[in-house]
């Protein structure tokens, strides 16, 4: 199965019915949607923290590489974004 490719210059935002937040009872970041919850792993949570509707995919990679220096994160981050896009958690923002 191939996920639709995400261009590095695409601005990423959450799909409208999802909400992302830190959940103390779960000790993890979660995505909430109608009548459900997705518990995110630590790294997925860090990536989703950068999804703000303003930052591009490349910008997200850059931010994370600054936060976790010495790691080449491009491949992992882009892969996660593509999976998240395929599952409908995020979308690329239309220009204008």
């Amino acid at each position, binding site marked *: 199965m191939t996920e639709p490719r995400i261009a590095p210059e695409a601005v990423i935002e959450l799909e*409208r019915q999802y*909400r992302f*937040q830190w*959940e103390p009872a779960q000790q993890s970041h*979660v995505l*909430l*949607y*109608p*009548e459900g919850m997705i518990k995110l792993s630590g790294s997925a949570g860090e990536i989703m923290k950068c999804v703000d509707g303003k930052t591009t995919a490349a910008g997200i990679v850059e931010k994370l590489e600054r936060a976790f220096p010495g790691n080449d994160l491009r491949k992992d981050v882009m892969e996660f974004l593509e999976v998240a896009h395929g599952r409908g958690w995020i979308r690329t923002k239309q220009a204008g």
Partner: protein
Amino acid sequence: MDEAGFAPSKPAERKISNPLWLNAEITFRCPLHCAYCYNPVDYTRSGPELSTEDWLRVFREARELGAVQLGISGGEPLMRDDVEVMVTEAHRLGYYTNLLTSGIGLTEKRIAAFKEGGLDQIQLSFQDSTRELNDFLSSTRTFDLKSKVAKLIKQYEYPMVLNVVLHRLNIDHIQAILDMAEAMGVEHLELANTQYYAWALINRDQLIPSREQLVRAEEITNQFRARMGNRCKVYFVVPDYYATRPKACMNGWGSVFLNIAADGLALPCHEARQLPGLTFPNVRDHDVRWIWHESPGFNAYRGDDWMKEPCRSCPDKTKDFGGCRCQAYMLTGDATNTDPVCDLSPNHHLITDVVEKAQIPGQPVKVHPIVFRDDKNSRKLSQKEQPETTPVG
């Protein structure tokens, strides 16, 4: 694991999971009279409604325990004028907030306030509550109202979620229902057959569809699904009477679901108040932590210590938890019995007898005319008298 041995584990140490889903039935008042309503048939006997402050405290306490989803339901929740306050506080607390409404009372002023307060989702239900069932779907008044509300929901950028309850008397109109959903621009459509609790149990013979009706409705729904693709996600729920294994009711007793009724009674499901021998706590007397962790009512059917055969030795007991306690009680008189939907239950004939009778074409054999949910019938049912009935068709 060098400590592992033959020492018996302490049963008291059983881990209790967090509630994830708080359902707030903020009122039993409702302008509709649906014959399949799952509110208690004796709702007129329930105590006064919780105050706004009580509800906000319940929201806070359940949130502290880990609840993330909040359903604001009823009755018709919009009968209360403090839903705006509740939504705003729920959002501040970090809930994903869902409003379950018939749309009656959903004005532009209110929806704007809900949006402002942070309401996440509106689930609109289509009710065929008219006493003249023949008017169903041809009632332009109802359709106009739903269309108006649907337009508001879109205008305020909510996903369009529609729930339609199906039963013997409307399921043959499935094409018209789907056409309506398409015209309204529905994105999530739930076509749920009646489950036979409360008012729907009283009216079960009139509500249960035949197998032929179900097959036909599902076929038409599948065609619609194929044609609509991603534009509309469709869920079709068959009555559990047509299953051979029970549903994993509430994902297990006291496992994820916490229901607080209009009068403050805390329940592991909508229907549990009827179970004999159990007393359920009221949020007026106890905090939610005690209710969830300590109250005898919430611990009654946790785990599997309470199970009898055939559940006790069944490999599926961790999957379906023996089905629904309320259904077991309503149909067999003992809540610790296997849900008779299960074909391993010695009481399974209680289900198949009803299903068999439902195959008789045309109108079901009427034991009594349909009993509509209203205050008068509820008062009569509270006294176990024969309810007022209205002839159909």
